[in-house]
């Protein structure tokens, strides 16, 4: 959503092999990590990552998990959790397999809600806890703070306590510097019995627009009314001189009937033909539209992909209880290999920090990005659900009053009936009446 890149704190947990009967795995298979990145807008992104190869999921009371306090986590603008499970080879010849479980939690803290608008932050202010001791089961417990802004000449930010080591790496195409705090290193926590990282901005940053990433996208519905509309996706390539292709995958529900002949792709005012288009039309109530395209985005441009659609009238029972809320259209998925500014070296997964696995690189010149646009809410023509009741009332009234009266007029006949003179019951009743003094029937 926001233009900045949230560096998630990933928690990776590697599960041990499920009872393979070996000796207890060495302790150095639990790694936990926290990566903190201040974003240009002032928000702070924190990513927890726990990776373990224990065979059971142990409760961790110390270490980084003390920072996961629920009430502060709900003052965030964005959070995302992931669990990854995969088999890994235990040795070079891959004769046996262990299971790796990674648990990840990414949050983006809102500077305005937590920090009252100031861009300074600290662990205590974000999580309302500080780090007291490392997890005793962890083989590795580290906190990385992105201090890329620090190494410039003007020294705009200051991290407290000062880091003992720094780590440099190429992430998402740019070179970044991280301050490393190793919780297992006694010198880090020893002094004050707790570690409260603080970051202060020396010169207050000006209020200017945050920088945009190389690839970002936006999606919206244009047009008004309940009959038709147009689905627009805007793809921005802000790289100054490199063009790159993007794979765009759209899944549109069947009740928005797409007119594929109106599909237009324009970049910089000219038409842009996609090099690959795959379209699977929708079948009513069975499957949605599937549209997949490979589009070449020219450098420093905005590409607009638009397709017109018509809204369908659903069957009476297919409407949800809240049809005026609208119906959702899933986000489009963009996948691209974005060219990076700095060549990335190939990485050794065991030695490098856990968060490097978030940014896989196949070759050093580009990095893979998968983006999701925002979901859309579209109103469909909604019938008046009180009409069956109205129709029933009206027709019953019409039938009863009008038809009934006409029927009576047409078919009712009168015939004279002689009053009956006697009857046993009547004579008995008259006797009783005479006895009472009441006039007879």
């Amino acid at each position: 959503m926001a233009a900045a890149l949230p560096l998630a704190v990933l928690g990776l947990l590697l599960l041990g092999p499920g009872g393979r009967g070996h000796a207890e795995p060495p302790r150095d298979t639990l790694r936990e990590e926290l990566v903190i990145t201040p974003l240009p807008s002032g928000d702070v992104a924190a990513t927890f990552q726990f990776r373990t190869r224990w065979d059971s999921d142990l409760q961790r009371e110390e270490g980084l998990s003390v920072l996961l306090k629920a009430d502060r986590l709900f003052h965030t603008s964005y959070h995302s959790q992931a669990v990854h499970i995969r088999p890994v080879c235990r040795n070079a010849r891959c004769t046996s397999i262990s299971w790796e479980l990674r648990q990840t939690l990414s949050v983006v803290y809102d500077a305005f809600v937590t920090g009252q608008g100031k861009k300074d932050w600290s662990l205590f202010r974000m999580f309302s806890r500080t780090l007291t001791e490392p997890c005793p089961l962890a083989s590795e417990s580290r906190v990385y703070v992105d201090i890329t802004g620090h190494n410039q000449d003007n020294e705009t930010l200051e991290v407290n306590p000062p880091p003992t080591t720094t780590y440099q790496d190429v992430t998402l195409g740019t070179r970044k510097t991280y301050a490393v705090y190793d919780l297992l290193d006694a010198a880090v926590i020893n002094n004050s019995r707790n570690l409260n990282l603080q970051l202060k901005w020396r010169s207050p940053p000006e209020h200017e627009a945050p920088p945009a990433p190389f690839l970002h996208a936006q999606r919206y519905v244009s047009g008004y009314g309940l009959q038709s509309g147009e689905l627009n996706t805007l793809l921005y390539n802000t790289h100054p001189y490199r063009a790159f292709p993007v794979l765009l995958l759209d899944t549109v529900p069947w009740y928005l009937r797409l007119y594929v002949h109106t599909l237009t792709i324009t970049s910089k005012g000219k038409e842009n033909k996609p090099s690959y288009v795959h379209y699977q039309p929708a079948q009513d109530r069975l499957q949605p539209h599937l549209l997949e395209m490979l589009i070449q985005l020219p450098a420093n441009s905005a590409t607009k992909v638009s397709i017109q659609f018509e809204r369908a009238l659903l069957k009476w029972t297919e409407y949800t209880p809240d049809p005026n809320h609208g119906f959702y259209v899933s986000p489009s998925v963009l996948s691209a290999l974005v060219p990076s500014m700095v060549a990335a070296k190939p990485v050794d997964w065991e030695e490098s920090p856990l968060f490097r696995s978030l940014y896989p690189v196949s070759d050093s010149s580009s990095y893979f990005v998968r983006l999701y646009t925002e979901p859309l809410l579209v109103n469909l023509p909604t019938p008046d659900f009180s009409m069956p009741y109205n129709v029933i009332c009206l027709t019953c009234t019409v039938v009863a009053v009008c038809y009934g009266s006409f029927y009576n007029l047409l078919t009712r006949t009168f015939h004279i009936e002689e009053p009956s003179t006697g009857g046993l019951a009547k004579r008995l009743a008259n006797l009783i009446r005479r006895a009472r003094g009441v006039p007879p029937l």
Partner: protein
Amino acid sequence: GIAWFLALAFPPLTQRTYMSENAMGSTMVEEQFAGGDRARGLARDFAAHRRKSGALPVAWLERTMRSVGLEVYTQSFSRRLPFPDETHERYMVSGTNVYGILRAPRAASTESLVLTVPCGPDSTNSQAVGLLLALAAHFRGQIYWAKDIIFLVTEQDLLGTEAWLEAYHDVNVTGMQSSPLQGRAGAIQAAVALELSSDVVTSLDVAVEGLNGQLPNLDLLNLFQTFCQKGGLLCTLQGKLQPQDWTSVDGPLQGLQTLLLMVLQQASGRPHGPHGLFLRYRVEALTIRGINSFRQYKYDLVAVGKALEGAFRKLNHLLERLHQSYFFYLLPALARFVSIGLYMPAAGFLLLVLGLKALELWMQLHEAGVGPEEPRGASGPSPPVLPAQSVGLASLVAPLLISQAMGLALYILPVLGQHVATQHFPVAEAEAVVLTLLAIYAAGLALPHSTQRVVSAQAPDRGWMALKLVALIYLALQLACITLTNFSLGFLLAATMVPAAALTTPCGPRPLYAALLVLTSPAATLLGSLFLWRGA
């Protein structure tokens, strides 16, 4: 019909308003807005910057909105006016809109609410801008927002609002040139427009009428009325105070006055505030105007801000678009309304008059036709009384087509011919349009010539009946169609045209009838109501 209409203001026909949307009804929130001083300070800054630059201080607004924590975008627009502006002698109007989006935390940006402050060249509306920024700062610190909120400051009043709406929905309805928007927030659910004349207000005036007489959902009005009552604010409708008692005669009479004002506003089809432009896109919107008059008790910006905060928090609870309450209503007072089922019979009775008159003519024609059944061209010395229907229908087509063509010409030609006229004749554009209109009216004077043939072909005392019959039915149809979409316009036109149309015959005093028909034609009604508006 007219009696029914006048009775609409009285208690059995009006109902108290009630909140139909369940999502907005049950929870009353505790407002915490306390940014009155900040709002005043920001308003002062805005006014100073605006005076210095002469137009909207875009850079200052951008900086301030960004410091408050919104995502800020701008949009520039320009529009070529069809007629030159008399006061400023310009053809091209251009401006910049500035808007900031407050993204709801952990939400997917699928729905949004809009708070808009129009800034025109005459009315700077700086207090409303200050309040908007202070509210934005207050809202930004809360975690309960489920929808995004767009804070929009437009230039050039209605033009800027229309430019923003068109760019947001990516359509081009009015021929405005505007730059595309970079930031969007999903589907807009509701909008509030705010206009404040000073930093203390004595009353808040609510405006509901929109473009072409479209009205927002009544629930939005009910929402504001609830907050007026909760905050103890004095809220007015059409500038009139609300009558307190409805049991005596005074209350309903005042209500009747408000009702008539609303009917006039709605019939004019002009949006009474920027909210009127939102209604086309099915976004429910209202305009709140703060008025400073000579009352003793004044409310400051904190009170207005609290009402807006409460209203936005309630709108935040919405699960669906506002649809439960009425879309067609008339308001004798802020807390009372007349629904369409109750006011439509007034127009129905008026149109019934036309229908009955047409039926009467039909019966008379039938009598004439049923009479002597001589074949056409009989050899009798007296001219045969021909059945009027068979001849009438064929030759009726000509006058009908001509009047229809005249109407079409009146609608299309002045705009089309404006360009051509200014190229070939040395007239200004406004004069070209007026002269074209007059020319078409003059050409319409030829209408009686075409009808002469109809009348003279048949018996002189019967021939006009067929023409009048068709004309009455046509008029009834047209008025019914207008009434369905814009009740006020339809009712006013019906009230003036129906008596004249029903009464006039060629047999009575001609000059009187002619004068009556001209006086009650729509053009004359428009002129008359303009005079009334200027005078009232």
